[in-house]
């Protein structure tokens, strides 16, 4: 088990390999469909200091606003990452992001982006909304709430021992590809 704390350096990201189990600590930034479209098309400058050497989490959380105005996370598992395939590599490069957390894995374009910039794709257990929300210790800030609504907003949070698996690394390897290939072979045998 590897313990990592954000910000992450390029060297740290490049050391990680497919299959590594990681406990992530520190700040991460939530973003999904609307946020990725916005980052690719408008490349907002204000996000640069927030995202440099940081980790993006594909997640639209269930949140709760308390009477004193502070937010907490109620459920916060990963959403399907492949929807960001057209945006991800460019976002990683533009903002020097070192890690992307999601589920289901991503494609060739993102894999090339991870290699080029020096970043990894980290897989969280889909559907484990309560368990992962428990590891979100503090909501630091939320951006673009008005424009995008709560599931799509940029939530900046602090996590503690957030359990992840490296399924795509900066060396071009992907656990998703390996499993897909094996299952396709088996399917061929089953339907022969």
């Amino acid at each position, binding site marked *: 088990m590897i313990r990592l704390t954000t910000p992450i350096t390029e060297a740290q990201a490049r050391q990680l390999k497919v*299959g590594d*189990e990681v406990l992530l600590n520190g700040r991460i930034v939530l973003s999904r*469909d*609307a946020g990725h479209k916005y980052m690719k098309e408008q490349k907002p400058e204000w996000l640069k200091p927030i995202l440099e050497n940081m980790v993006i989490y594909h*997640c*639209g*959380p*269930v*949140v*709760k606003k308390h009477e004193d105005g502070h937010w907490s996370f*109620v*459920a*916060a*598992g990963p*959403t*399907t990452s*492949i929807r960001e395939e057209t945006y991800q590599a460019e976002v990683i490069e533009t903002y020097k992001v070192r890690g992307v957390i999601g*589920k*289901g*894995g991503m494609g060739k374009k993102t894999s090339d982006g991870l290699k080029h910039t020096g970043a990894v794709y980290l*897989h969280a*257990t*889909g*559907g*484990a*909304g*309560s*368990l992962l*929300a*428990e590891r979100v210790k503090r909501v630091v800030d939320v951006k673009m709430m008005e424009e*995008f*609504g*709560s*599931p*799509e907003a940029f939530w900046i949070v602090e996590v503690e021992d957030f*359990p992840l*698996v490296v*399924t795509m690394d900066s060396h071009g390897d992907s*656990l*998703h590809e*390996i*499993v*897909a290939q*094996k*299952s*396709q072979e*088996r*399917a061929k045998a*089953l*339907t022969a």
Partner: protein
Amino acid sequence: MSECVIPTLTSAEVVASRSVLPANWKADLAQPQSLDLTLPALELLRRSTSRLPQDVIDALVRGRDAEEDGSRSFNTLNDMLRNIRLADGQVSPLCQDTGTLIFWVRHPFGLRQRQAKQQIRAAVAEASARSWLRPNCVEALSGKNLGNNLDPFLEGHPIVHFEEWDRPEIEISIMQKGGGCENVGAQYRLPDAAIGAGRDLKGVRKCIIDMVVKAQGQGCSPGILGVAIGGDRVTSYEKSKEVILRKLGTPNPNPAMDAFEKEITRDLNSLGIGPMGYGGNTTVLGVLVEEMYRHPASFFVSISYMCWSSRRNSLTIASNGTVSFD
């Protein structure tokens, strides 16, 4: 030996003590036009969003026990079981994607459907305000989110199917179907030359295997498949969701189809996709199939994929007015 998480749910007493329905709540089914279903529907939502059905939990435990001790698939299933315990213990959503809400209301003559729909919508808005549901209903093109899970045009969300029946009681079932698993569902039109599937059960089997291989871990495996054979495009897809209401382990009433379900489940679990697509022996928790009549020229196979967090629940208002949940 790694820890084997046993997800014991809170007792019936605790669940009752947390209910939004007063203990003495009773309906007067003799006056169906004055019935208020808001509170029962809200309690139904509370349970379905935070408590996984026991048959699904049992299937996950069996899956975990079929994985190699300490493997990534074993650990992942353990995390899923931990999550189930946590969500139930604190009454929080099992998954942040609280899904598309699909209701099936079966009722005797006399219930006012428009009124019942408004009451269900009120319960949905209230559950959203209580953070039991994520605001999951956005305008198609703009993505605008009104925050209350209600489609203002009364059509899109929540989805409410009504059916009048001859029985005296009212039954409301709910399914919370996440977007990730909804996106991996598929409809095939047989014959399908691309996958070599003809118009028979062998062809149906090829469709199912093809769909699951394409989905990999994307639908949050291990999933539950609802399969409808026949119908038109709409009724076929609709049926493929409704069959997921059947409890896992309940045999298909058609013995030949029951055998098919068991065999295809074994086949799919030999694909090696595993929990979340990490590899492993547990790719699906079950396959539920139903056959319908069809137009002679059309042969549809519709497959709905339900994620491992198969959130469903039913409430029954008996003829004496008391409510029970299952």
